Structure formats: C-alpha cells, structure tokens
C-alpha cells in the first residue's frame, strides 16, 4: 500500500456515518451503520492482506503535523493489527444485534456506536502518546450514553459508575504521560518504547499507567464497574465492552507498561500475580452463584482477563503470545456469549437463568451455537480458548509454578460455571411454557452467529494465522524485556528435570489438557 491512508480512511468512514446517522430516521440509520461497519471491515481485511509479515515493525504509517504539542501519527504493528481486526469484525455484528432490539432513538444509538468504532481503531492505531490518550478517554462518552440511554432498569447508576471509575483511572495516566514527554522530549510512541526511563521514576509511571489499565482491564479489586455496566448495557453494548474495550487495558500493558518500564514491570509483577490469582479464583466462584446470565459472563470476563495479565507479566514469548490470543479469543467468545444471551433476552426479556430451561428442544440451532461458545470459553481444544490459555499458562509456568497452579484452577472453575450455565439454560426439562415456545434462530441471528463460530474454530484449529503477524513484535518486546526478566522459581537441574519439577508440572498440564 503506497500512499493510500488506509488507517485514516478507516477512522473517517464510521465518523462520517455517525454524523449521517444523527440526522436520519431509524430505518436509514440502521442501513447506514451496517454499511459503514461493513466497509470498515472490508478495509480491515485489506489491511490484513497487505500487512507485510516480517517487514517493518510499523506499517501503514501516516503522520501529519496538525496539532501543537502532539501530532496526528498513525501506524500499526502486528499486535495492533489483530486488535483492529477484532474491532472491525465485531462492529457489523453489534449493529446486527441492535437491529430490532433498539427501537427508540435509533439514529443516536447508531451514531454512538460508529463513534465508538472510530475511537477503538484510533486507540490501536495511534502512534502518538497524546493522540492515544484522547482516543482512549473519548471512548467514555459514547459508552456512557449507550449504557445510560438504552440500558436496563438500573442504567443510570451503571453509567455513572462506568464513567467515573474509568476516568479516575485514566487521569493519573495523563500526568504520567506529561512527565514522560517532558523527560523524553517526544510524544512518539515507538521512540518512547525504546527510551530508558530512570528506574526510580519508572515505578511511579508504571503505577499511574497501572491505575488506568487495571480499571479498564478490569483487574480485581477494581472490576466492580464491569458487572454493573454489562448487565445494564444493551446487548451490543456488552459485546463491544467485553469484546474490545476490555482489550484496551491489555493493549495498554503490552504497548506502554511493559516496553516503556521494564524494570518497574518486573518489580511489580508479584502484585500483578497476586491480583490475578485472586481474580481467577474469586470471580470464578462468584460467577458460579450468579442468577443473571449477563452477570455470570461478566465475572467470567474478569477471570479470563486475569489470565491475560499473568501471561503478559510472564516475561517470555509464550506468555505474551498467549495473552494476545486469550484477548482475541475472549473478544470473540464473550462477545458471542453476550450475543447469545441477547438472542433469548429479545424473546423473553429476562436474563434470569431460572426462567429458561430445555431450550435444546425448541431451539436446537441456538443450542448448538451456544455450545460452541461455551466450549470455547471453557477452553476446549479445537477452540480459540484453548490455544490462548495453554500458551499463557505455560508461559507463566516457566516463571512461577505457583501462579500457574492457582490460575490453572481457573480453567476448571471456568468449566464448572459455564457448563452449569449451559445445563440450566439449554438442557433439563422445559419448565417454563413461554421459554419453551420461543422460536429458533432467524436469518439475522444466524448471520451473526456463523462468522463468530467460524472465527472461534479457525483460531482454535489454525492459530498460526493469528500468531504470524505478531510474532516479530512479540519477539522484539521479549528482547526489550530480557534485561529486567525476574528469576524463575523452577530449579532446573540440567539435563533432566528432577522429580520435584515433575510434580509441579501437573496443574498446568491439567489446565492445558482440560
């Protein structure tokens, strides 16, 4: 691609469509939104097709000195490419999910979603620190409106909580960014990624970034906004929240915290491990007792994101690659699960698990898709969930077997709450007449489910397609982190592993083989 500003076009298409939607009636707004997101998806496919694996680290770069103090600078590496793909892939599905369920103020709704898409792509494509921050923060406004206007009964509380929680997290990051730019004299992210900040300052900078990304991610104990936001948001809002917005936290760690502050990252790794271990066990147990389907999936998201964070702070290639795959997989799977909940919510208008049952009888196609996504969430081999979790856990196992053991239980607990959910909703007797009378998937829902299921299986069966573009970037990140790598707790006695190491191998192996 020579000279064609494809990233800018990808930003502009939804933005223009958003303005158009704002002033159109419901019907045309839906079509404009669908068309714009499909165009963006096509552009995304073009982006991927033209991405030169093994080429320059930063590709499709654009830079225009439009502003004072920072510049309009875009460019992507493999990591950003995949996350952009995830965003543009989920967006048309979100629009589809809102096709009928949103019937009031459609134009504004679609405009908010399209604005969201612009900002998501902007976050992943920004190569300027402050451009990133603006995109990162701006996402709060459309999401606040989506939750607050089109959400459920307790939407106002949820929207406030979402906004203020994430805002408080990010403002400290802004101060840290200002300090960094003052120190390094540039706002260019690639330059900053190679800049060595003094170790004393790194600590504070890392904490400031952590405040923002931990809330966004979300990590225990600052995850409490997530269940509220998810439960109250409309289906498509939950999809985009779980699918893409949570990934911004992980992307932040991989793009900023790790390469810019390697020493501090190593220093704070135990903190991350502790929080992640608690998150995996605690939120999985909480998920087990939920009566609300969306809440259950929301808590499972927190547990999955904890696997992402331990993988990121494993300081090795497997961990980093695993985290990326978990993020992509979780984006697809949790998005799909929220969609699946949305499908039956549209029919019965309740998320109460007890109100359903025996759906396999009257909705066999639905049951099949729900099964695929449940298995992917559990991490069954052959689905995307397996690849990521096994990589992330084997990555952390090299560094700390205890963390791997505790987080490995997340896979078992995950199986427990997901299968329990599946049993209660899909199997069993049809105790509710209205639930038993629900029609199976229609064409629109079919069209949304099939691509998601296909992507989940593709990532599970041939993950190389997804690993290939980012391999080089992960390797250079790993090289950057090498100097701060914490010591492993495994006392390897070459050439043959001892009996003790063998025994410790079990939990991770268990997790993987599950």
């Amino acid at each position, binding site marked *: 691609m020579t000279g064609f500003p494809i990233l800018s076009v990808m930003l502009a298409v939804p933005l223009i469509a958003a303005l158009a939607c704002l002033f159109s009636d419901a019907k045309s707004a839906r079509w404009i939104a669908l068309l714009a997101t499909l165009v963006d998806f096509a552009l995304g496919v073009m982006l991927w097709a033209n991405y030169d694996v093994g080429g320059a680290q930063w590709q499709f770069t654009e830079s225009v000195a439009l*502003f004072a*103090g920072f510049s309009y600078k875009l460019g992507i590496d493999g990591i950003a490419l995949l996350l952009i793909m995830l965003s543009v892939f989920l967006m048309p599905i979100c629009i589809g999910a809102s096709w009928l369920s949103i019937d009031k103020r459609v134009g504004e709704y679609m405009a908010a979603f399209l604005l969201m898409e612009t900002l998501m792509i902007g976050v992943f494509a920004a190569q300027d620190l402050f451009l990133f921050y603006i995109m990162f923060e*701006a996402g709060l406004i459309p999401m606040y409106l989506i939750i607050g206007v089109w959400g459920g009964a307790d939407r106002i509380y949820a929207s406030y909580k979402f*906004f*203020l929680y994430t805002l*408080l997290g990010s*403002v400290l990051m*802004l101060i840290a960014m200002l300090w960094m730019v*003052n120190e390094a004299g540039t706002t260019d992210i690639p330059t900053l990624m190679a800049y060595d900040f003094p170790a004393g300052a790194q600590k504070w900078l890392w904490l400031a970034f952590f405040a923002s990304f931990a809330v966004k991610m979300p990590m225990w104990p600052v995850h409490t906004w997530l269940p509220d936001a998810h439960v109250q948001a409309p289906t498509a809002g939950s999809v985009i929240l779980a699918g893409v917005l949570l990934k911004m936290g992980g992307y932040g760690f991989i793009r900023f915290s790790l390469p810019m502050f390697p020493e501090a990252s190593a220093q704070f790794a135990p903190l991350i491990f502790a929080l992640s271990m608690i998150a995996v066990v605690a939120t999985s147990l909480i998920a087990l007792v939920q009566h609300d389907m969306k809440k259950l999936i929301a808590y499972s998201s927190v547990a999955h994101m904890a696997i992402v964070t331990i993988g990121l702070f494993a300081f090795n290639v497997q961990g980093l690659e695993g985290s990326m795959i978990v993020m992509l997989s979780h984006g697809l799977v949790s998005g799909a699960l929220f969609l699946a909940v949305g499908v039956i919510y549209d029919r019965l208008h309740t998320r109460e698990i007890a109100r359903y049952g025996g759906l396999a009888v009257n909705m066999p196609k639905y049951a099949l898709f729900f099964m695929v996504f449940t298995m992917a969430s559990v991490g069954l081999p052959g689905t995307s969930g397996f690849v990521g979790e096994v990589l992330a856990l084997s990555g952390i196992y090299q560094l700390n077997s205890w963390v791997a053991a505790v987080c490995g239980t997340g896979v078992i607990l995950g199986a427990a709450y997901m299968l329990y959910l599946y049993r209660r909703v899909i199997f069993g007797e049809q105790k509710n007449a209205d639930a038993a009378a629900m029609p199976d998937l229609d064409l629109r829902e079919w069209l949304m489910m099939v691509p998601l299921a296909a992507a989940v299986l593709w990532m599970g069966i041939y993950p190389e397609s997804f690993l290939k573009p980012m391999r080089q970037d992960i390797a250079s990140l790993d090289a950057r982190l090498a100097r701060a790598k914490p010591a492993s707790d495994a006392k390897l006695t070459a050439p043959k592993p001892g009996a003790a190491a063998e025994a410790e191998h079990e939990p991770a192996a268990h997790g993987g083989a599950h």
Partner: protein
Amino acid sequence: MDWSHSLRLVAPEELLSVSGLVLLLGSAWAKGKRDARAITWLAVLTLAIAAALVVKPLWSGLSGEAANAFDGLYSGDAFAAFAKLLIYAAAGASLLVAPVFFEKARSMRPEYPVLVLFAVAGMGMMVSATDMLTLYVGLELNSLAAYVLAAFLRNDQCSAEAGLKYFVLGALASGILLFGMSLTYGFTGTTSFTGIAAALSGEISTGALFGLVFVLAGLAFKISAAPFHMWTPDVYEGAPTPVTMFFASAPKVAALALTIRVALVAFGTQIAAWQQIVIVVSLMSIVIGALGAIGQSNLKRLLAYSSINNVGFLLIGLAAATRAGVEGMLVYLAIYVAMTVGGFVALLMLKDRDGNQVEQIDQIAGLSRERKVLALCFAMVMFSLAGIPPLFGFWGKFVVFQAAVAAGLLPLAVIGIAASVIGAFYYLKVVKVMYFDEPAGVVVGKSDWIHHALLLIAALFISPLGYLLTKCLGTLAALAAGTLTPGA
C-alpha cells in the same frame, strides 16, 4: 516617549470610551426597542473595530519600550492584545444575546450596551496596566459598570439583590486590594510594576509581603477564586442571564490577565512568596467549585460553580510561574470563553411555551428528544468543561497541566487532576438529565438566528475540530506570553 505614540497605543480604549460616551448621548434620544437594538449593534461594531486595532500589536508581538505608553503607566503589548481580543469577543456575544432577553423582561434600554462598553474599556485598562494606579482605575471603571449591570432588571428583586451583593463585596475587595497596594507602595516606594520588581529583588520585607498577600486576595475576589468565591453563585443567579454570561467571561479574562501580570512582573522577583498562595487557592477553587456544584438545582448556579472550578485549573498555570504556564493559561482562557459563551447561549435558548427562561435542571429533562441540536451542543459544553477529550476543553486543561509538570509541580498536578473527576460528576448529571430522563416537556420555545449562530460557532470551536486551531492559538499565546516573561 511622545504623546502621539502613547495615544496611538491606547487607541482601543479611546475608541471604546468615546463611542461609549457618544452612544450614551444618543441613548438620551432613543425611543423604543428599535433604537435600543440599533445602539446595541453600534456597540458591537465598536468592539469589532477595537478588536481590529489590537490584532496588529498581537501579531507583531509588540513588547518592551515600543509598547510602553505614558511613561510606564500603560502597555499596549501583545499580552494585553491577546486578552483584549478575548474580552471583546465575550462582550460582543453578551451584547448580541441581550435584546431578546431584555425585551421579554420589558426592560431593553440602550444603557445596557453603553455600560458594557465602559466595562470593556475598564477591562482594557486592567490588562494593559503596568502601574498599580492604572490597574486600580481600570478595575474600578469595570466594577462600577458591572455593579449597575448586575442590577439592570431594577424591578426584579433577585437582580437588585445581586447588584447590591456584588457592590458591597466588590467594594470590600477593592478596599483590600487598595490596602495591599498602599502597603506595597510604602515598602517599595513606587507604584510601577517594574519598579516594584526591582525594589523587591532581594529579601522581601514583612511589610511588602503583607502588601503582596492583600493584593493577591483582592485579585482572587475579582477572579472568584476560593476562598473568595462566595459572591459568585448568588450574583450569577440573580443577575440577568446575558449579564451573567458577560460576568463569567470577559471580566474573568481581564482579572486573570491582570493577576498574571501583577504576579509575574510586579512580584516577578518574589515568585517563591506567592507561588504557594496560588497553589492553595487553585486547589481550593477546584475542590470547592466541584463539590459546591453537586447540590445545585439551578443551571446558572451550577455554571457559577463551574467557573470557580475552571479558575482553579487556570491558576495551575500561574502556579507554574513559567512562560509555558502563562501560554497554557492564555490558551485555556480562549477555550474557556468559548465554553462559557456556548453554555450561556444554550441556557438562554431554554425557554418555555411563553418564552420565559428555564433555569432549573429538572425542567430540561429529556431535552435531547425535544431539542436534539441544542441538547447536543449543551452536552458538548458540559463534557468540554469537564475536560473530557476529544472535546476542546481538554486541551485547556492539558496545556496547564503540562506546564505544571514541566515546572516540577507534580503533587499539584496529581491532586488537581484527581479532583477534576469530582467535577466530572455534576457535568455528567446535566447530560444525564438531558439524555436519560423522560422529557419534561417544558422547553418548547424558539430562539432567533443570533442565538443559533453563536451556539454553532461556540460548539464548532469546542468540538474536536478545535484541535486544528491548537497551532494558531499556541503561536498567539506564545507571542503574548513572550512579552511578559522575556527571559524565562
């Protein structure tokens, strides 16, 4: 320095004073609404010409001896020119929205534009003052006109009360300021800013320190910074809305520019003596402005607290006491004026069936379904005031925090920005009421094209498109700030 040179430098103030007097004479023969409107338009024209006069000094970065008029009493430099542009713009907007409002209240009189012109002339002197005496004369010229403006709806009890309150408290503040100035004069032997700076270049004496504290306290009252902010919500609520819009924009710019000049030029050799005062005042304003606004049910009071909150952020730039800090403040001021004008124009456009103003928050419930564009613009102003990107209000906060971080004031920056989250809460509340709640059906009245045009301009300025202006604003602010702090 010959007289003609001096007179050329003060041309904007001469123009404003002379046309103010001529229009005052004219208004003696004015009859009815039409004449009053004509005088308003003439006043706007005067402001436009005055603005044209200050463009050149700003663009050429006029400073030093070339800008010096009347032997160091007055300076027509780029810094003053920048502030004057903002003042003229804000005053012009307050004139344009006035006729509709006052005609509804049956009190559209030609004195309104005349008083605004006098106030603006006073503000021009304030920002150009390089001597304590010029400062005081300018300040009083502005204040006296402002007291009358606050009580302009003389049959309305609230308006009269606002005028009285403003007058009593304003007089007290002027007294404090005058007391500080006399102490400063007593211990330095001069009223000229550069003279004071030279006299204070060594160790500061206790007496001069007292003078400094009193001067700053008096100025803090004028910019309604906490803990001298008590009058603001009452006066803003009671004064007629166009006047409130004027108070919240033009005099704020003038008083802040004046404070910058006093702090950095007159007391520029004693930065350590006032820096901590500014830090405390700034943080107090941010927190009190944010907390005070939460319980408000009246939009004008809410905007009053919002202005206190914003002054706090502006003062962070002053606390940095660097050239970057001043630049940041000037950029922030420009954005602040646009946000204030946008907010108040939107407020003026909220009318019920009979054309009466709607000021209660619960009455604008569900506005987004009845008045899509108006609600959108108002929501943009709110998000912008809260400093949420991608709206332009973020940029104002960004540049002052950048200056504070560069000056090493990290604790101030951290506390300030964390407190901005408290402020976000009440701005969100307004958006919530407009977007999430069921329509109250109160706001149904129409507005004329002037309001729409002003709202559109302000909305475009604070929209993300505003970022395209960052270079231009930055250059102008750098020119202006350069004249003030040549070395720094």
